[in-house]
């Protein structure tokens, strides 16, 4: 009988403990409601990609010597290099070049190994299309330069994802309008000019 | 005939039609799952009939227990034993069914003549009870029907224990019987690529050039 009572008591204690933990969890969740949101309002605000961001690949047609190094270093032999041997100049003449970004993993090996630096990384990452074949970029599409976030008048560029202003450690009470860490490019420019 | 009575008659006709149709469906349809869902329809229309008979509490109890418990239980049982099995055809199935239908129709005729022939001393001017039916039922339960009430609760307890014991799976001895069956190692259908030794060991170094020389 005593043992049974002890069991019941222990069970009740455990239940109370569980209730306490749930209460603690609720207080943590509630506490988060008083913190500043970390949201980037995407189409209206965009983060500036970092310097070594690996985005869509840019290709300069005239620099290419059709050496096919990019094809060889690519993990899946993705770039399609279509060339013809020009007998007069005894050089390979590039006709077409294309990369399918629906398959590309943006490892950057081709950029790394390109002997003439005709391949480079851009900061473009908005690659959604209605059809996957539209992601197969030919040399014309690869030659386009992306629009810079900082130049777009429709977009507020944001410097970094870190959401608290510099020097602030407590996430409470920071207003939504308080600026984030880091400086925008034009601010850096202003500073360096001074 | 005023508005309320017309509503009563119409809803009685609708509910009874629904109930008979659903009950026929329960009995006649080949798909057992349909039968089970139609059984829910029967129960709900019977609950509606109870409301027509001034019994709101029993109607709610009907919905709660029949629809909410019994019907769900039946559905569970169907899902648990849901094997599309074709019963072995019996030789005289049609005859059996015909005979049963005949007997049932006869029974119905018998009952209905009895019902219609008996002069029921119905107090047609039924006085609606002043107090709620719940109070009246409760009074009955705890005064003159106390013993059946307690017995019913004991019965429920016994039924619950019995159902649990019947439906519980025994601890399976089959698992213990064959503990030594080797689990087949699952492998990928494609073979892994053969690794090219970067620093090959001495045996391959010595043997392969020799073979080639021969």
């Amino acid at each position, binding site marked *: 009988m005593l043992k049974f009572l002890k069991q019941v008591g222990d069970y009740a204690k455990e239940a109370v403990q569980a209730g306490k933990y749930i209460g603690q969890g609720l207080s943590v969740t509630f506490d988060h409601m008083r913190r500043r949101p970390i949201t980037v309002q995407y189409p209206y605000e965009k983060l500036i990609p970092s310097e070594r961001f690996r985005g869509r690949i840019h290709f300069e047609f005239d620099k290419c010597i059709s050496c096919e190094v990019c094809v060889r270093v690519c993990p899946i032999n993705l770039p399609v290099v279509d060339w013809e041997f020009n007998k007069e100049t005894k050089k390979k003449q590039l006709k077409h070049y294309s990369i399918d970004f629906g398959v590309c993993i943006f490892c950057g090996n081709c950029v790394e190994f390109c002997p003439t630096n005709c391949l480079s990384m851009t900061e473009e990452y908005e690659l959604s299309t209605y059809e996957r074949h539209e992601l197969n970029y030919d040399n014309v599409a690869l030659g386009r330069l992306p629009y810079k976030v900082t130049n777009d008048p429709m977009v507020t560029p944001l410097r970094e994802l870190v959401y608290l202003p510099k020097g602030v450690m407590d996430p409470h009470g920071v207003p939504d309008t308080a600026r984030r860490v880091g400086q925008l490019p034009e601010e850096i420019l202003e500073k360096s000019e001074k | 005939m005023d508005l309320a*009575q017309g509503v009563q008659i119409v809803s009685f006709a609708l509910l009874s039609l629904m109930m008979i149709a659903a*009950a026929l469906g*329960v009995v006649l349809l080949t798909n057992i799952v349909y039968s089970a869902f139609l059984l829910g329809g029967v129960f709900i229309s019977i609950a509606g009939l*109870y409301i027509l008979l001034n019994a709101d509490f029993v109607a709610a109890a009907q919905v709660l227990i029949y629809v909410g418990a019994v019907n769900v239980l039946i559905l569970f049982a169907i899902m648990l034993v849901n094997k599309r099995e074709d019963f072995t055809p019996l030789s005289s199935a049609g005859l059996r069914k015909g005979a049963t239908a005949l007997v049932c129709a006869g029974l119905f005729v018998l009952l209905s003549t009895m019902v219609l022939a008996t002069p029921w001393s119905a*107090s047609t001017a*039924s006085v609606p009870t002043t107090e709620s039916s719940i109070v009246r039922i409760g009074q009955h339960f705890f005064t003159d029907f106390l013993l059946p009430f307690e017995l019913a609760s004991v019965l429920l307890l016994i039924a619950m224990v019995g159902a649990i014991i019947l439906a519980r799976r025994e601890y399976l001895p089959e698992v213990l019987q064959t503990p030594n069956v080797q689990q087949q190692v699952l492998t990928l259908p494609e073979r892994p690529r053969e690794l090219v030794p970067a620093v090959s060991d001495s045996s391959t170094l010595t043997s392969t050039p020799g073979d080639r020389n021969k």
Partner: protein
Amino acid sequence: MQLQLQYFLLLGAALFCIGIYGLITSRNAVRVLMSIELLLNAVNINFMGFSNFLDPQEIKGQVFTVFVITVAAAEAAVGLAIVLSIYRNRDTVDMEQFNLLKW
């Protein structure tokens, strides 16, 4: 025209006959249980009819109906448990196969 006791009694009789038919002809054990539920409900309709038309003050019919509902719930639980355990042993719910106790 008013609702009469006879209507409900006839309805109960019809439901009862349908239930009997199902009880005898069904070969699926679960359907047999469903037919039994139909029978119990037919009885309930009679109880309720009598309670409302012959005994509107002391609604003993309703009390009986509640008892029948209780018994039906217990019956369904035990019956389905039995069907389930038979199904486990014999791997079928065909009533014609449950003939172990036949001589």
